[in-house]
């Protein structure tokens, strides 16, 4: 137990404080950490990430943010006066996802393929995709971890937007922010198919 406390004391943890006062440091997820007499709330700004270290009695000492800090989920349970009940909270890291679009063989040769996203109110020629081969296009997109993006596939205009195999407008595709995720989309048909 003492060894674990000593090990924890050597580490810093990244937390999002919600409030800090004599009763403790409330953090994102609803847990409350005990404050060390060596610590102070002076530098704590609610909502802004900080690092904490633990004293030998697993009470916290707020610090300025250290990028190498461990996630809050690794804080020893003994440090909490009120344990958090929330699951792990995404740290909002910047990640990239990959969207691969397969187009129908009858797509006019030389077509550019675009992603049209909710971010631009669905500008049909918003982001030109990179070509992989004659039938596949790809776009690597930066996203926040846990983020989400709704998008459609077009050939650059609304009259050339994708349709499903029955000729209907499909609902938007949804990309979610999971590091390294690859989203494969197959376009069944285009609006201007005859």
């Amino acid at each position: 137990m003492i060894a674990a406390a000593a090990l924890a004391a050597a580490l810093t943890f990244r937390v999002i404080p919600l409030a800090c006062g004599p009763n403790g440091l409330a953090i994102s997820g609803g847990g409350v950490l005990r404050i060390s007499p060596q610590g102070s709330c002076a530098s704590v700004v609610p909502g802004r990430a900080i690092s904490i270290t633990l004293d030998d009695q697993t009470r916290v000492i707020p610090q300025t943010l250290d990028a190498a800090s461990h996630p809050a989920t690794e804080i020893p349970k003994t440090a909490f006066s009120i344990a958090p009940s929330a699951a792990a909270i995404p740290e909002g890291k910047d990640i990239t996802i990959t969207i691969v679009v397969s187009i129908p063989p009858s797509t006019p040769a030389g077509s550019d393929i675009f992603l049209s996203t909710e971010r631009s109110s669905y500008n049909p020629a918003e982001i030109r995709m990179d070509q992989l081969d004659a039938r596949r296009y790809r776009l690597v997109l930066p996203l926040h971890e846990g983020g989400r993006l709704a998008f459609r596939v077009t050939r650059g205009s609304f009259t050339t937007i994708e349709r499903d195999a029955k000729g209907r407008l499909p609902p938007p595709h949804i990309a979610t922010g999971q590091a390294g995720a690859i989203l494969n989309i197959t376009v069944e048909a285009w609006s201007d198919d005859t």
Partner: protein
Amino acid sequence: MRARALVFALALVTLWPLRAEAKPVAEIDGGAVLFYSDSLGIVVRNGVTLHLAGGMVVSGDTAYIDLRADKAIVAGSAQITRGAVTLHADALAFDLPGRKLDVLRSDTGIARADATLTQLQPAPDDGDAFAFPDLVDRRAYIRARHASIVSRTSVRFRPAAFPTSAGAPPVPMYLYTFASGNGYAATALSSAAFDQPYGLISTPNALTSAHLRYLNGTGASLGLEQNLIDNNDGYLAGAVDVPIHAPVAEGLNSYRRLGEDGTVSVGATSFDGLHTGLVGFTQAIGTLVSRLNYGITNTGASSAILSLRTRDKELFDGITWHTSVNYGFLAQDGGVYSLAPNPTQQQTVWQKGIDVFLASPLIHGPLRTTLSATVDGSNTEYSYPHHFNALETNLTGSRRLSRTMTLFFGYDTRWSADLFPNAQMIFYPPLPTQYGYEGYTTARLANVDLQYVQGPYTSVRLSYRKADDFPQVNYFAGRPPNEVRADVRVRPFSNIGLSFGRSYDFGWNGSRWVPGWNFSVFQ
């Protein structure tokens, strides 16, 4: 005018029911209101006050609002007031109507408050409600002082700025729409080299937007568009486009699902005295898709084509195919064929056609190459003795040169024959040599493209196209003999990317280069 009114009425009929309510569920004021588009989240720093639709007022040091879930957290000296009752806490978590309220106090933990704010029941397992994400200020897409939220629809920022490392371009107001529904993507505006929508008014079923546009050959233009949306089932988009140096264009575009397998669409355009109307139906029948398209103009022309197409199916060894047949008519007041001996006798001409399309599989060869090919042949017969045959082929290859560089090459051909038995000389009379076109055309296009892609931040594509068509006469027939083009996509700032393309046509009888371009801004 009657035709336009009829088209408009038909388009309106395709939509029902529409509910419009744009009452904000929350108004936010804060020192810094930061919006993150890919998480649909708002972080408020340096003090925050939320006025909820139910009359409650919440304030604190900071706040996070999850627009997707309609939930909010206010933390740091938080308090909520309803009428004469005020509740203090270290943090408050609530849904945006304010019906469900969780209270976090460092000494007692989490409790659930009742509607009067006077009774608290322990709720130690509600920690998820207090999950405050770790969002970095510099990654915000928009920075503002005030935000007005319409539930699951839109958020309006005032005044708004778009922070980058090189400054923060401001606008007095910015409306960000995140409602789902196919109709938000619909437009009745023509394609443009640059088109930046700017939302003005949004409700759960409607969006009014201005479009700052640039059209190649026409110049700058201002568009105004109104979209009415019925989830993913229908929409109506009406637009007026006002170029500085060209006549005003008007457009209408609507769509509605008919049951599980059918759709109807109605469209209309008006430009410089020419008015057109279009009505289309699609219906899936098993593995077939049928289409009926009817079009009419105020110049006395109309057409209706019914087609039936199979889905792509494998023939053998990965080769896929589909076929379609069509039947319909072309009509023109005064005659479809103005050169015919008695044109008024052919004011309506019926047609029937067949098209067969074959595609090879994508073949992976040595040296990281790929190759694929398609062939498309069609024949159309007309009731006035006349038939039109076409054959198109395409060969596309690629070779991956390195992790970042790929070379593409292609060769397209198209042959067509427009034949009038015993009357070819009437419809294709002798003309000077370069116009010596007797109904037979040949079009060949070779292209080579070099693409460089470096992660998500940089993409450059250089293209050259060589067209060898017959006939090929400047502004008369065929394509420009040469085209070079560059497309670049870069992300100069962490939250804003730019995509632009520039092309030049040249070689028309020694003509100068004719530039064209496109441009877009994305996040």
